[in-house]
């Protein structure tokens, strides 16, 4: 037990230390240190997951509470500095708001004579997030070693970028294991700071504007957390700052306002409409940043918080409001994405959309829903990471940003276009993990219809339509970049830098391994994690007819194996297969031999975005109003 605690602490400490070393060491040594530390982090998180038996707390001596408080104040001071430096009124006002709330909180804490709470609580959910954060972000960190090297900026800034990335990984590890809300607030605000630093990295006007937007939006989340702490301290029954106590005592107290405020913070971090624009603005930063924010770390705080809250809010009005919001966002973001041409913007909208689905599943809170949410978090993380890293390759090697220009990609970069294909397909089709999430979510919503008397029927409709819209979106993009003329029958892969290649191949094999191991993962991985989330055992059993039952759902294995053989395997083969004895002809174009430029259908849905945001705002208000009533 003690060794496990130490290992968890090493997860917190190792990334910042490696980052500091990186600042000092020369380039090559820095690279080695980064790669070694990333491998160590991944190994530790795997070891932790394997050797874990029951949830434990980590107690840090009491004076660290004071240190956290001082860090909070310093952070706010820095925000105020940014506000003055960039002349941003909004950031300034929100910082003042945060400062007032923080001051009130400190006063409350002075009056409050609570017992000593453990600051950290590590259960399987934390370990699940550790795995995702450390492995996927580790891959991103290795990748960005090369990427940032090709960036046009001073060597110091390059090192600073890597340093920020590494300490950010450390902060993410802290976020998912913090139990004391005070600590949680600090780490939450640190991630906000990291997003500000990342987004404003390129220093041009657009970057700074977007970074400030990210800052103030996430500051609202910070205020919500402060509010949650204040309410939780002043509500009779809670009087606690511990996340766990808050969740477990919610049923007896009945007032859900602190939980609702935490959920609001989560939804803002998860870029749900109308707060989606901070995540969309994040694409002005270097591409690894997008990969980091979208896939494994920043936005995944949202489903993580909701998963933590799930046992307390299950079946309440609060969860219904969250379900309504996220179901709406799933559809709205998918529709908005259709109008986009920029590759990264398309990916960003699809992230917002799928995040909605994850949060929705977490908010429903039944056994199967939790498992589905976990499946989505994991596989969406891996697939999105691969897609974003690939977007980086597209930018650096092929100088392509808009999907409309990717006309001849399959000829000049078959491997890159193949990765994009697999990435998109793994988000929508069987047998991939994200598809399983979509499938289960429809069935779960279908099966909860009776209990909610049809209230979730509209949400189910939104999921059904949103799923179809997302497929159309992916087909639209794929159609632009897989066209190859008949003369290029033999595929010769392009050469990219090994640091790019290795990481992409690693992610690709993770996706495929995830498909193959899914039955085992369900039993040995998602099942136990879901049990820890719910606090009660989740029945995941193997049935006689080669299917796995999760709660009241069953996951048939044989069709999945068939689908695996049909889809990913056949896509692989289709790249390499050569029909030797078959003659070639040109494509039919009524006898013409002109080289055509290909395009896709244009969907004019951009004008809907303000309306979507307005509706999203109404849902946010609904979350608060419903809980207050």
């Amino acid at each position, binding site marked *: 037990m003690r060794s496990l605690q130490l290992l968890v602490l090493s997860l917190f400490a190792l990334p910042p230390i490696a980052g500091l070393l990186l600042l000092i060491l020369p380039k090559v040594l820095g690279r080695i240190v980064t790669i070694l530390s990333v491998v160590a982090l991944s190994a530790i998180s795997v070891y932790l997951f394997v050797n874990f038996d029951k949830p434990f707390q980590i107690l840090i001596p009491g004076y660290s509470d004071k240190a956290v408080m001082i860090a909070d104040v310093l952070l706010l001071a820095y925000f105020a500095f940014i506000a003055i430096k960039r002349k941003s009124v909004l950031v300034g006002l929100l910082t003042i708001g945060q400062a007032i709330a923080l001051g009130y909180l400190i006063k409350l804490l002075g009056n409050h004579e609570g017992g000593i709470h453990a600051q950290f609580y590590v259960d399987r959910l934390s370990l699940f997030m550790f795995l995702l954060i450390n492995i996927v972000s580790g891959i991103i960190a290795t990748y960005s070693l090369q990427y940032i090297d090709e960036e046009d900026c001073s060597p110091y800034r390059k090192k600073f970028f890597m340093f920020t990335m590494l300490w950010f990984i450390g902060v993410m590890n802290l976020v998912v294991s913090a139990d004391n809300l005070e600590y949680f607030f600090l780490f939450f605000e640190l991630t906000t700071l990291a997003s500000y630093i990342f987004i404003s990295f390129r220093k041009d006007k657009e970057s700074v504007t977007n970074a400030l937007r990210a800052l103030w939006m996430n500051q609202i989340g910070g205020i919500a957390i402060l509010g949650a702490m204040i309410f939780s301290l002043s509500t009779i029954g809670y009087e606690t700052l511990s996340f766990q106590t808050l969740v477990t005592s919610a049923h007896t107290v009945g007032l859900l306002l602190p939980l609702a405020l935490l959920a609001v913070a989560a939804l803002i971090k998860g870029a749900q409409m109308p707060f989606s624009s901070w995540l969309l603005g994040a694409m002005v930063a270097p591409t690894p940043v997008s990969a980091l924010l979208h896939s494994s770390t920043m936005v995944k705080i949202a489903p993580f918080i909701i998963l933590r809250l799930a046992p307390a809010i299950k079946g309440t009005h609060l969860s219904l409001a969250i379900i309504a919001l996220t179901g709406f966002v799933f559809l709205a973001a998918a529709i908005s994405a259709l109008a986009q041409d920029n590759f990264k913007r398309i990916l960003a909208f699809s992230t917002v959309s799928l995040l909605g689905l994850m949060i929705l599943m977490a908010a429903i809170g039944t056994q199967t829903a939790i498992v589905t949410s976990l499946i989505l978090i994991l596989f969406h993380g891996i697939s999105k990471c691969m897609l974003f890293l690939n977007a980086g390759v597209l930018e650096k090697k092929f100088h392509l940003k808009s999907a409309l220009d990717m006309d001849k990609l399959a000829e000049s970069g078959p491997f890159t276009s193949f990765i994009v294909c697999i990435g998109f397909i793994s988000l929508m089709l069987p047998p991939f993990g994200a598809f399983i999430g979509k499938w289960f979510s429809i069935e779960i919503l279908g099966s909860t219809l009776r209990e909610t008397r049809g209230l979730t029927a509209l949400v189910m409709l939104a999921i059904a339509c949103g799923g179809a819209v997302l497929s159309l979106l992916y087909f639209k993009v794929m159609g632009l970049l897989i066209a190859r003329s008949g003369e290029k029958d033999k595929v010769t892969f392009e050469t990219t830098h090994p640091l790019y290649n290795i990481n992409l191949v690693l992610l690709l094999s993770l996706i495929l391994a995830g498909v193959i191991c899914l039955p085992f993962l369900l039993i040995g991985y998602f099942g136990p994690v879901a049990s820890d989330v719910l606090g009660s055992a989740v029945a995941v059993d193997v049935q006689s007819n080669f299917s796995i039952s999760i709660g009241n759902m069953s996951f048939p294995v044989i069709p999945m194996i068939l689908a695996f053989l049909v889809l990913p395997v056949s896509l692989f083969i289709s790249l390499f297969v050569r029909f030797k004895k078959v003659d070639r*002809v*040109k494509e*039919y174009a*009524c*006898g*013409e*031999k*002109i080289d055509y430029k290909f395009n896709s259908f244009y969907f004019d849905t951009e004008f809907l975005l303000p309306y979507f945001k307005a509706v999203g705002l109404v849902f946010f208000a609904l979350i608060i109003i419903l809980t207050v009533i």
Partner: protein
Amino acid sequence: MFELKKFRKKSPWILHFNAGGCNGCDIEILACLAPKYDIERFGMINTGNPKQSDILLITGPVTKRTRERLVEVYNQMPEPKVVVCCGSCASTGGIFRGMYNIEGGVDQFIPVDVYVAGCACRPEQIIDGVVVALGILEEKTKEIEKTIKLANKPVVEEDGQVNRRNMPAELTYETAV
């Protein structure tokens, strides 16, 4: 043994190509498909796609513009295939013969199996021609059929608006296909 060859006769799919005619013959071909003559009872379908058809029905004289398209479409048809010229223009150039924009009959460029006379040819005649063509189709092998001219004759595209590519280099079908 199970002879695949005899099924050629039972499902000939048609590709209709107008090489520059006056649309008289085209209307007659469409009349064949209509309920009165109904060539679908022989299993024929007008596919509109060279890659899936067996019979190439050509109407009209070959103009300078359609020549390369005709050859290209012909080359995209997989063997065994037959070519039927519908009407006098397609067979010889007809009344357009000798005009500045006309290259002549179809048989100058691709091998023709059946000539259907008439201006315009009647639907009965077309059906008759196709039935003759079916007999030829059954005897053909899967050997590649070559186009007649164009192989060595350099082609100069007079109007660069449509096609700027170097056609002679691409059209050496004798070796390429």
